[in-house]
């Protein structure tokens, strides 16, 4: 909260610095702008920049470290007898102190040493805030004053401001890399912790999955089993069902829309198909649970089949519907990229439109279509909400679409929602599954994008 006030004050100061810088530059040349190197605005921005940036950097660094520093000071002041220099006990103590400070534990019921430490902490924190405010404001005023006094007509203010803008834009562009790095590091780091507890081979090739951990050490089945093969099979099964639905429907509608449909029909049907793509996946999940799954169940009953209420078929079918527009718009692009001369050649030989499409256009577009199908598969594998709602939780190793199976994303969600300690194998397993998911989808995407691009180059 205090930081927010400080930042607002900083912004006000910078506004003042901006105005003063602009006016000063204007006055220096008596309004003869041609004598200035840059427009007056840039002198203002230059002053504002030096007012805010150093102060802001100090503010960020301070906020990042002050908790640790104060914690260290408080612990150093605690009597040695409380923790005996043991890191684990120090952490417990810090936790107690924090609970007292947050008012989660009433001071009467806590240890007196802890209470006094909490008070000490509050005192230090207040001092730290005061010091921070002084340092930041002094820096801001100094920065502004320094630049304001140095303004002269030949100063290259615009170049300095533009350089800063360029650096900021470069930082913004690098956020993508930081995100990828963040994903890789967070997932890999937790996965390594997991693979210390469970061997990689057992995870990748084991056929039994039951991540329950024991409450007591002597409980039966206390170790849990982390063989992920049933999950991989379930994911593959549901994705395969989805692709069986999505590929023919998506491909055929793309062919019809790009080769046969009249422009009027196309301009209505294409946006309607795109509505399917815009519907949130959670809505598809509700649809699968409330409409499709009961329908499949009653249909199966009437045929005398035993259908699980959370069958892979229901989840796969609805997921297929979700992916139809994805397949169709990607294949549409690919089919449109096939040069008209190929079609004209086929027509000249007397081929009917459908023969042209089947024997000339589709073979020419095949690499692109394969690429778009791969992208669709990676979509299906990573899709979460439909399967969380419509697929099962228990890991059955089964290829029967009428049975209940589970997927990688379902397991990640069930393992990570709810309150668990963060370093149990159960939660770490979710990150290991996340790593597999990330690597598989990344691989599919890289290959698919490469195939599509290569194909595009061929005809450009």
């Amino acid at each position, binding site marked *: 909260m205090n930081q927010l006030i400080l930042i607002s004050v900083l912004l006000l100061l910078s506004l003042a610095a901006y105005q003063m810088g602009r006016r000063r530059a204007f006055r220096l040349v008596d309004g003869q702008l041609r004598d200035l190197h840059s427009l007056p605005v840039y002198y203002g921005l230059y002053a504002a920049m030096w007012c805010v940036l150093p102060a802001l950097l100090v503010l960020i660094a301070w906020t990042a470290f002050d908790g640790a520093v104060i914690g260290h000071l408080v612990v150093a002041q605690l009597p040695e007898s409380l923790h005996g220099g043991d890191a684990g006990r120090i952490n417990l103590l810090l936790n107690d102190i924090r609970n007292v400070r947050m008012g989660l534990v009433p001071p009467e019921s806590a240890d007196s040493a802890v209470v006094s430490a909490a008070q000490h902490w509050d005192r230090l924190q207040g001092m730290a805030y005061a010091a921070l405010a002084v340092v930041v404001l002094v820096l801001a005023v100094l920065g502004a004053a320094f630049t304001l006094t140095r303004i002269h007509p030949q100063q290259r203010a615009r170049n300095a401001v533009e350089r800063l803008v360029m650096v900021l834009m470069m930082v913004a562009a690098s956020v993508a890399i930081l995100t990828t790095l963040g994903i890789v590091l967070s997932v890999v780091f937790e996965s390594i912790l997991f693979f210390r507890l469970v061997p990689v081979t057992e995870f990748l090739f084991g056929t039994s999955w039951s991540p329950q951990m024991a409450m007591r050490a002597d409980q039966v089945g206390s170790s849990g089993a982390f063989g992920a093969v049933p999950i991989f099979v379930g994911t593959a099964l549901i994705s395969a069902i989805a692709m069986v639905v999505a590929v023919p429907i998506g491909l055929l509608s793309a062919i019809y829309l790009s080769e046969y449909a009249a422009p009027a029909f196309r301009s209505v049907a294409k946006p309607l198909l795109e509505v399917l793509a815009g519907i949130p996946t959670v809505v598809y999940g509700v649809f699968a649970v*409330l409409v499709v799954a009961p329908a499949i169940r009653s249909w199966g009953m009437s045929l005398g089949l035993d259908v699980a209420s959370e069958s892979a078929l229901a989840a796969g079918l609805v997921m297929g519907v979700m992916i139809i527009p994805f397949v169709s718009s990607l294949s549409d692009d690919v089919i449109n990229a096939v040069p008209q001369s190929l079609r004209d050649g086929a027509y000249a030989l007397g081929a009917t439109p459908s023969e042209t499409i089947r024997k000339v256009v589709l073979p020419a577009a095949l690499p692109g279509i394969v690429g778009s199908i791969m992208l669709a598969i990676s979509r299906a594998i990573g899709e979460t909400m439909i399967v969380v709602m419509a697929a099962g939780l228990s890991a059955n190793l089964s290829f029967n679409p009428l049975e209940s199976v589970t997927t990688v994303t379902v397991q990640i969600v069930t393992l990570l929602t709810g309150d668990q300690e963060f370093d149990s194998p159960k939660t770490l397993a979710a990150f290991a599954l996340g790593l597999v998911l990330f690597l598989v989808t990344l691989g599919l995407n890289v290959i698919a994008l490469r195939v599509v691009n290569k194909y595009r180059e061929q005809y450009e």
Partner: protein
Amino acid sequence: MSNQILPLPRPVEVINTGLGRRRAAERRFRLYGVAAITLALIFLVLLFISIIGKGYTAFWQTQVQMEATLAPELLDIADPADRNQVMAANYGAVMKAALRQAFPEVTGRAEQRQLFALVSSGAEDILRQRLLDDPSLLGQTVSVWVPAGGDIDMVRKGHIDRSLPESERRVSDQELAWMDALVQQGRIEQRFNWQFLSTGDSRSPEQAGIWGAVMGSFLTLAVTMLLSFPLGVAAAVYLEEFAPKNRWTDFIEVNINNLAAVPSIVFGLLGLAVFINIFGLPRSAPLVGGLVLTLMTLPTIIIAGRAALKSVPPSIREAALGVGASPLQTVTNHVLPLAMPGILTGMIIGMARALGETAPLLMIGMVAFIVDVPKGVFDPATALPVQIYLWADSPELGFAERTSAAIMVLLVFLLSMNALAVILRRRFERRW
């Protein structure tokens, strides 16, 4: 062996004999295409029909008129001037007395409990509000319309089949008889359900509303927009206008393209590991949700922004540079304003996708049961799609219609955002 020489068929005849078959194949192929599109559209229509058919009733609420006597001794109010006493008074007792008065013949304990379930426990809040608004009502008998209990609501809306034998439905014959008596007296009505649009979540379906979830979504999207717009535009401008062609820029480009296809749940894992466990930000907070969705939508926005910048013709840049503008001035004063409609369209589409996103929010704990409407980005909150997920999981009948109604609200938001994007594109798109 005969010496007869068969005349060779002429090519035209060969073609003609095959023509019928080939034309049939042509027609079949066309039909497949039409069938595929029809099938996809049938799914779409089915989806909308099933959701609207199930959900529209949630916008109506069954209300019961009760004559409640606000007796101070029942309410346990000694001093009417004391606001705290009025707040904490026992309105349940007043409601029970009113119900007993309406049906004096009911005496048994179990029967009375059934009787009290005719009216939702939300009735107490309505009485409290009445008394807070007008303290002079204390001791008087007021006529109030209060929401009916969840089961009665379901019967009135036809979600519970009255023709089933008593043992197979949730509502007993006795309750139905009471309800019919009230209907005959004209004391049961269907009214527009403002409560659904104005309150937070609740354990009892007839009191649950979506306002908390809408606010959660709004706060999350506000954070997303504030962060992703400047970041996305800056990155797009840099990559499209200034970046030198080198390995680093290529690497950034590959990264952005790949991130656009990473499953959203992986972003949730990132948010959990980095924002919550390392940075120590609070769980379930719209701030963290907004951060995660920012990272998720950034690639989309950057890609759309670059396409918009690319469509501005080079002549604009050359003209600006020609009259002495610096490269940055060229971009900020000339190229960017011309590309803005395209960038905004991409932004709105990205926001629409973020609004419908559920999976990453599950990872960062925005699935908790939260009654209070969040007031800031640090308050625990859920989002609209997460609320739909939570209600879809609830076994009570009343939540089924609320799930569909919440979906309708979400779809209205999404459709209007997309319509805005389309209008923006139509209005401001320039062909060069």
